[in-house]
Structure formats: C-alpha cells, structure tokens
C-alpha cells in the first residue's frame, strides 16, 4: 500500500438498499474491523467528504438526492458502490421503482461485490478508493492536465 498524503473522510448514503450493506458499512467502522486505522473518519456532511459509499441501487425517487449529494462533495471525489445492488441493481433490478446500479446516475470508481458486502471487502474497496483519490488529486494538482474530471 503506498503512502497517502491525506486522511480521507467517508460519507455513507443509502440509495435503496435492504439495510444489510448499510450496517456492514457501519460495522467496518467498529472495533473489530476499524477502518479508522487508515485515517478514515465517517462524516455526515457531504461538503466534508472525499469518499462517498453508496449502498443499494438507485430508485426514481432517490435519484435527485444522490445527484445532489454528489454535487455537494468537493473535488477530487471518489464514489464506491457497496454491494451487488449498488453495482447492478442486484435482486431488485426487475422491481418497477429501481433504475439500476449507482453508475446509472453518477460515475462510480470502485465496485465492491457481495450481498451483503462483507466488512473485509468494504475495507478493500476503501483502500482502492484511496489510491484513486490519490491519483485524482495528483492529476488535478498538475498544471498541464487541468481537466476537472481527472
């Protein structure tokens, strides 16, 4: 694992999950798994967050909320889709109110599989997100590549 220049804060939002992945996200912050040892702090405010953990697929009612949260986060930002529902819609993909995975609405950088995603894989997803974040901040700091989405 490379060295990171900053301690990223994560935020969690429930797209339309069954709660299973949500509590696994919370469980990964508690003593047994403890992602805080990676410098990660859980925050409730999108304006302070670097990494957005989304559980569950996107439904038509929640879509605008997810878009809004994403737009409120400062650049550079990373989105992690936690659980099969967030990756593709999962068991709910044929439900009338489900649009699909998170990537139908906002760009996703890391996909964490599993139903429910295990805390171990969530931690792995966050570590990968840290690397993506590092790349993104390096790219946005470089004067020649001034593209905002880099």
């Amino acid at each position, binding site marked *: 694992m490379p060295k990171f220049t900053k301690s990223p804060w994560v935020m*969690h939002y429930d797209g*339309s999950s069954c*709660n299973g*992945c949500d509590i696994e996200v919370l469980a990964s912050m508690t003593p047994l798994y403890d992602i805080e040892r990676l410098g990660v702090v859980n925050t409730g405010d999108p304006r302070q967050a670097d990494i957005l953990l989304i559980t569950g697929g996107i439904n038509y009612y929640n879509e605008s909320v997810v878009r809004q949260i994403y737009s409120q986060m400062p650049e550079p930002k990373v989105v992690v889709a936690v659980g099969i529902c967030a990756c593709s819609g999962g068991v*709910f993909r044929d439900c009338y109110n489900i649009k699909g995975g998170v990537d139908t609405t906002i760009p996703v950088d890391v996909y964490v599989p599993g139903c*429910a995603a295990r805390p171990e894989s969530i931690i792995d997803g966050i570590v990968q997100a840290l690397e993506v974040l590092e790349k993104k901040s390096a790219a946005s700091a470089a004067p020649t590549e001034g593209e905002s989405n880099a």
Partner: protein
Amino acid sequence: MKRTIVPFGPQHPVLPEPIHLDLVLEDEKVVEAIPSFGFVHRGMEDLASKRDFNDYLYVVERICGICSYMHGMSYCEGAERIFGVEIPDRAKYLRTIWCELSRLHSHLLWLGLLADAFGFEALFMQSWRIREKILDMVEDSTGGRLISSVNLIGGVARDMDREMLDGFVKQFDKMESELRSLTKVFLKDTTVRARLFEVGVLTKTDAILYGAVGPMMRASGIELDTRKLGYAAYGDIDFDIITSNGCDSLARCEVRIGEIFQSFNIIRQAVAKIPDGEICISVKGNPKGEATVRMEQPRGEALYYMKANGTRNLERFRVRTPTFSNIYSLLKILPGAQFADVPLLILTIDPCISCTER
C-alpha cells in the same frame, strides 16, 4: 410565536437509512412533524408476480438486512401453511435458535445506535464489539453474516451439531457478564438517564390508540408478544413477556435490554431440548390458497399475507412491518419534544425504513 420549519433528512447522520421529516419548530420546541416516505421504495411486493415462488424466498430475505432471517422464515411458514405440511421438530428448534440470534444482534445494534444518538461514542463501539460475537455465531452456523438464506419451504437447509450448539451456550456466560456491565451504563449512568428519562412519553392509552407494536408497546405497559402464539418451537419454551411501565425512552431501553438476556435463556432452553431427526421435508407442486402469518420480530409484530393461485408465481404477497405501525407513535411523541431530542426519539422506535417502504 413565529414558526420555523427545519427539514430533517433524507441524508442525515442519525440513521444509516434515508427518512425525511419536516419539523415545525417554535423556538427549540417541536410542534409538529410531517414525514415523507419512499426514498428506499423498490417495489418488492410486485416482484412476487415475476418470480417463481421458491426463488421469491431470496427476495423476501432482502426486505430488510437486519431481520432477514425472520422475513425468510415467515415466508416459509406461510408457504408451509398453504401446502398444509408440518416441518420436522428439529427444524422448528433450529429456527427458534436462529430467530433469537437475530434478535440479539438486532437489539445490540439498536443499543449501539442509541448510544451514538446521544453522543456516547465509546458505548456505541462497545455494543457493536459484543454484537460481532453474535454475528460470528450466525456465520458459523449459516454461512452468512446477515443474509443467511438458510430457510427452505419445508424446513431448513443447514444443521448444527451438538458441539456447535454447546459451544454457543458456553460463550453466552462470558457475553452475559460483559453485557451486564455494559447495560448498567444505559440504565444507571446519570448523563444517560438525563437524556432518556421522561423523554418521549407514550402513555398506555396512546400506545393502544396509535397501534404501537413490539418493545415500543411493551415499554408502555402492554403485555403482548406474538411469540406466545407458539410458532416454531416457542410453544415448548418457557419465557415471560418483558414489560415496563415507564412509558419513556428509558423504559424502551430497559425492555430491549431485558429481551437481550431473555434471548440467551430461550436459546439455552432450545439447545437443551432440541430433538434429533430430519431437518427438511420435500414439498412438491405449486401452492394454492391463502395464508396469514404473524411473527414477533425484534422491532415488533409483523404480519404477512400470501395468496397463491396454483401457478408458479404468487398472486399477492403483502407485509405489514413493525416500523410501519410504530411511525404513528413516533409522530405522537415528537410534538412537544426538544429539537435536540429528535434523533433520539426517532431511534427509540428502532426504525427500519427499508422494511417499511420495501
């Protein structure tokens, strides 16, 4: 006095799930709370008409990740009633044990979240640390931490051997003594008491009037527990209904803590009594008929209705979940509360939004 409206949610730091309330405030006091729902509505009941009834079991388990086991079990009970089959005794006991393990992990989860809601971080971490041991037991016996998929129509898919069952019971003693010292903080600590005592009072009359269920109702002094109907092996097990006459948040905490220790005892009894034998019978054909199942989940009574017309798909599947019933009580206790107590009061009903909205 001038009124202000403060929107609460859908994204907020209290619960992992989205819920939206418009709080009408007069100064710091809530005068009205107007909820709006549907942020996690998926349309699962409709899916029953698209999926084979055997496969739909796996969808039902995902109504809610916390009570996943109980949802699956209720669905199977309903289907078994439609088919008119009786499952083997060993399967009944195994279901009882898993049910109580789910109750334990759900109540410990709630204790942690409650501690978090009144800002006691260490207590939150401690509760979840103990909860992980329960999840290890669930994982050892079913293979999954939350979504276990261990129920089948006609029984259960996995057995537990003597060694494993005795191993669980052996671990309980240590966990109980750890929990005793932990729960003492919830019930006796002065600062915690100050946040819970006489906050969010729901009188006995109101609890009946607003149709509260589960620990919410039992904390208002009503003695009712659907487990006494004797589904699974509960008929053979000796337990008392835990109630409290406090009617406030502290009483709800007390009832849930009481139920944690009660669950340990129920599992102990079930382990001592479990008979040998088959764990599953085969059920063939398509269901035809109707069934209604009532079941006590960690959050209260859930009601399932199933209607089958002899094809591979169910004609109608309907769930009334405990949070749905308890939201009325929440809207009753919010007016008059302090603004700072709102997160706490939302938590005292132990809300599960994904159940409610499906």
